[in-house]
């Protein structure tokens, strides 16, 4: 009787454990499935290779007929291109070799190469709307010498956000990694145990727990406003650096703690100085752990939105400086936030989500790989 009850008890508990696991895995599968189902259709080569905004440029082209053998329909001989009608716009369908459109100059006299899929119009007419392709061919062939075109390169791609994300990762790690690693070395190798050290540790632990929006607010007030950096990758990078420092310090310190003390004694016993011991023995032994800390930090940078929206802004552009109006940059995540909130473009948002998911999985795999390598080199096999 008693034994029977114990058996039932056991089965119930076991069932609960299994159910919990199933729920967890189920949630993961549902989320991944949902994001992939909604987002994948939006991912194509244009999405991955284009700028976000349509980009309109006035381009001068020195016409130089490319005759060749081309007998295709709607071939513009004077420009060496084939055009077509798409969504009521005239677009470049095909570019011949040695076509003069490859050597276009924009108004600032900077070379601007036309590409396939660019929307073109003669600059003296506002658009090529409501004209047939044949009329467009005639208009483009009209006259000789330089022709001024209004070129619209279609956007809808995530290139600026990918590049901005990379910039911000790089900038943040350049600031946070050396500072964090040095601080961890100080705490683990130099600081004398006592009240001060306890206070520092307490501060670090609490800093790690502060919601990122508070870092964002701080960054906006200090970097963006007081230091007049405007929405910029530097303001964003600095804010994220401050946010990540506690994590980098404590992860690195944990790794340093795991370096066996006998290594330190062995090195000191051979007449090495403390700095030599740190740089030649301790840091190399701790390197894999430090790399994992950095990869985890990259993961957090990629996923961060609250700390960046008010520091790096939500403009989809490739930043061309560290501070100022040219430096504002939306990362993939902040752009996603902006898309959902401001333009309700949920399709593009889920497509970005797919890219982010892929990125996070990749980062996790790399950190696993490093950890495994590390274990292998430790045991010497």
């Amino acid at each position: 009787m008693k034994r029977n009850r114990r058996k039932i008890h056991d089965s119930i508990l076991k069932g609960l454990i299994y159910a919990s696991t199933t729920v967890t895995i189920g949630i993961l599968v549902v989320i991944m499935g949902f994001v992939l189902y909604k987002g994948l259709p939006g991912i194509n080569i244009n999405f991955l290779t284009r700028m976000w905004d349509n980009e309109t440029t006035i381009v001068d082209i020195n016409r130089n007929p490319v005759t060749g053998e081309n007998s295709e329909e709607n071939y513009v001989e004077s420009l060496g291109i084939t055009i077509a009608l798409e969504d009521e716009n005239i677009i470049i369908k095909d570019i011949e070799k040695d076509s003069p459109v490859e050597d276009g100059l924009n108004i600032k006299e900077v070379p601007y190469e036309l590409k396939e899929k660019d929307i073109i119009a003669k600059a003296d007419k506002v658009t090529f709307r409501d004209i047939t392709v044949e009329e467009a061919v005639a208009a483009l062939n009209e006259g000789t010498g330089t022709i001024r075109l209004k070129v619209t390169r279609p956007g809808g791609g995530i290139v600026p956000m990918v590049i901005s994300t990379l910039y911000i990762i790089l900038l943040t790690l350049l600031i946070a990694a050396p500072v964090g690693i040095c601080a961890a070395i100080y705490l683990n190798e130099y600081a004398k145990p006592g009240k001060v050290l306890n206070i520092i540790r307490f501060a670090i632990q609490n800093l790690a727990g502060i919601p990122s929006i508070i870092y964002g607010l701080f960054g906006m007030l200090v970097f963006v406003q007081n230091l007049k950096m405007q929405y910029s990758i530097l303001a964003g990078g600095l804010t994220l650096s401050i946010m990540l420092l506690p994590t980098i310090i404590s992860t690195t310190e944990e790794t340093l703690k795991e370096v066996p003390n006998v290594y330190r004694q062995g090195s000191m016993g051979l007449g090495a100085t403390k700095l030599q011991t740190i740089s030649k023995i301790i840091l190399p032994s701790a390197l894999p752990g430090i790399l994992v800390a950095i990869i985890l930090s990259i993961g957090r940078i990629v996923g961060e939105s609250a700390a960046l929206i008010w520091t790096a802004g939500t403009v989809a552009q490739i930043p061309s400086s560290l501070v100022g109006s040219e430096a504002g940059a939306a990362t993939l995540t902040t752009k996603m936030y902006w898309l959902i909130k401001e333009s309700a473009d949920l399709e593009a948002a889920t497509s970005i989500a797919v890219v982010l998911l892929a990125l996070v999985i990749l980062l996790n795999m790399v950190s696993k790989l490093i950890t495994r390598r590390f274990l292998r080199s430790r045991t010497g096999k």
Partner: protein
Amino acid sequence: MKDITKFSVKDLNLFYGNFQALKNINMDIYKGQITAFIGPSGCGKSTFLKTINRMNDLIEGVTVNGTVTLDGVDIYKEMDAISLRTRVGMVFQQPNPFPMSIYDNVAYGPRIQGIRKKNTLDEIVEKSLRQAAIWDEVKDKLKKSAQAVSGGQQQRVCIARTLAIEPEVILMDEPTSALDPISTLKIEDLASELKKDYTIIIVTHNMQQAGRISDKTAFFLTGEVIEYGDTEQIFNKPSNKKTEDYITGRFG
């Protein structure tokens, strides 16, 4: 053979905070001999060994008073710890090769002293490994991780690593306590061989070991040197009752 003093210790006291770990130690250690420190756990023998190359500097809250001289020079007042440790090398209880190749382990000491030339390093590595009687066993796997060889081999690599900095004195802190009997025997033979060129001080738990290899033996108890003299005399005719009790296995 006439005894030449290498280390001279006078009125040495050592405290961990308020706890006195070494009490009023006076001792001369002689060149070209093996001196063994024996005694039960916690008697201060390892602590004393660490005062000789100032490894206790690395421990928080240690204060030392009294004098220790090496060739007549006070190691605490007239010498810095780094250059002292290049003259007084140390082998530890647990084999502690660094997580790098055998070659890099042995070349570590010379490298931190600024030797960069590959030929010179090659020579030092080979010479040290030969001296440590392990060259034949590892010459084909110098690039392999030093942690991949057996414990006894690791300990001899560590000895080679110490020899590579060409010290005058080698301190061995229970170097065989983690090893099997055969490896232990190899290390003991090695120590007897090395005393031709080096002064060796060995801390051991194993009295037979002290009896087998040492010339002088010091018996420690609760931070004091109870008796110090020729090994033969200590083991056969100890003059102190406590020494006799320990040697004959009545405690410890």
